[in-house]
């Protein structure tokens, strides 16, 4: 018995070590990204790096402003498309469909998450980009194309987390509202959505994180010109595409500048994650 207890204690220790793998990986990633990226940032000045609009790596001119704005634009565009459609699907799935319909709809929507991002990018190039070029003019490779593709890509994130938070509501909320004579839509608008608000907000923030971080699909449809886009039909380069486009041949300070681009991206994502985490944990707190 004593031997077994000793073994159990050893196993607990081993599992504790294993359990810290995710945290350690996160720490190592942070250390490496900052270690590689920050020296060049501070060498040329943080302000110039973030707010400069000239990106000429061969002349040691590293200004990330067009890419920061570019990432912001396509992410906002993705939100404009992804949020209404995502919420509509979530509401239909939880409130406006029978159990049988839901059993078909849910896996179908989950399938959206499984389609590789290169395939989305490809569909964008062969269908969406020519469509935009012919209908609205411009090169087709544009903020608009990237926004639409990203909007579709973030749907599964928004839908699944919103559905979870709506389903987690006590059934009494719904029953109470319906008992007072409210229609399903009134219940959704006045009871369900306000009550599930923090979960829905978390889903939107995580969707933003996905949109900002997406790389391959954006490279294929955004046009990648280094300039602040003047309209939704103008080409745009995001932080992620900046890294992926030039990583193949970059060396020296140029490569470090790409890591610095990664650092900027990393900081944005971590802020978004923390905010999403805080909103959803506050939700967990209030429910008890």
């Amino acid at each position: 018995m004593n031997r077994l207890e000793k073994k159990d204690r050893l196993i607990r220790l081993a599992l504790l070590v294993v359990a810290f793998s995710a945290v350690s990986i996160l720490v190592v990633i942070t250390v490496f990204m900052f270690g590689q990226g920050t020296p060049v940032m501070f060498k040329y000045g943080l302000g110039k790096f973030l707010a400069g609009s000239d990106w000429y790596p061969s002349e040691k001119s590293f200004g990330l402003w067009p890419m920061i704005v570019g990432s912001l634009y396509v992410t906002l565009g993705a939100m404009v498309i992804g949020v209404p459609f995502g919420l509509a699907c979530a509401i239909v799935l939880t409130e406006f469909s029978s159990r049988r319909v839901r059993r078909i709809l849910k896996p179908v929507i989950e399938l959206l998450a499984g389609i590789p991002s290169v395939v989305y990018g490809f569909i964008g190039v062969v269908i969406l980009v020519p469509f935009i070029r012919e209908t609205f003019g411009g090169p087709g490779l544009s903020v608009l194309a990237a926004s639409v593709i990203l909007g579709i890509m973030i749907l599964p994130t928004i839908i699944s987390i919103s559905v979870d938070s709506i389903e987690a509501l006590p059934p009494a909320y719904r029953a109470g509202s319906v008992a007072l004579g409210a229609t399903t839509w009134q219940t959704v608008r006045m009871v369900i959505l306000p009550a599930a608000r923090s979960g829905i907000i978390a889903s939107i923030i995580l969707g933003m994180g996905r949109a900002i971080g997406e790389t391959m699909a954006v490279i294929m449809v955004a046009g990648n010109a280094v300039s602040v886009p003047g309209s939704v039909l103008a080409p745009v380069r995001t932080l992620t595409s900046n890294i992926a486009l030039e990583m193949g041949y970059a060396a020296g300070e140029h490569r470090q500048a790409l890591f610095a681009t990664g650092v900027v991206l990393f900081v944005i994502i971590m802020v978004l994650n923390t905010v999403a985490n805080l909103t959803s944990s506050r939700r967990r707190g209030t429910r008890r």
Partner: protein
Amino acid sequence: MSLDPRLTQRLAKAVLWAMTVLTVAVLVFIIVFVLRKGLPVIDLGFLTKSPVDMGKGGGIFSTIVGTAALTALAVLIATPLGVGTAIFLTEYTWENTVTRVIRFGAECLAGIPSIIFGLFGFILFVTTLGFGWSILSGGLTLAFMILPTIIRTSEEAIKSVPPVFRTVSFSLGGTKWQTVTRVVLPSALPGIVTGIILSIGRSIGETAAVIFTAGSALRLPTSLFSSSRTMSVHFYILAREGISMSRAYGTAAVLIIAILLVNIATYRLMNRFIRKYS
């Protein structure tokens, strides 16, 4: 708000359903489009011959092997770590600062974009540790990427095993570890496998993290240290550099079929698991 509530109800329902149908239609369109263009390209030769002339001719055999090798390595590394973490979180501790730190770490890791994993894998495995562009570098990078998924699904699976199973095992004199390995894990297995299959799907479709760590060599990989191109990377290069549209469609169709199979397998397993415990 002067509208009749019943009318608004009907209107809202119609609009929401229309949006949902449109979403599903987009998905169906993507899949049908790729399969219709790609399936005619696929024959036995396409699947069993390696690419010739940068992918203009031949098949995609070496990229299938590369994808399988990378995915297998990633799963082999991430599964013990992920399941171990889940066991620790559910069976060996209670909610405290340590578990909060671990959960926060896993959640943050899940949110990190694949391009950052690619950069990190490149600097750590490819250059610092000197593995070069290789299956090893790519597999390790992918393993880090899928770890959060495996942790989360395993944790949920273990949590859904009824507590009574454990009580019975303890009352029969089983130790904690015996209970975990002989009672809890076997019951949670379908749920854990679901998580692994999901991660396989993610690994197959991944491009950004793989292209800078596993490289893009077209040769058939012979060891952990050979560079290898995956199907997604191959598809990306074919499409972006306009090497061969028909072969790009063919590769995309193989990718989509693989993803469909993965999703169907996940869904069936999950359903069986849910039915068992509810």
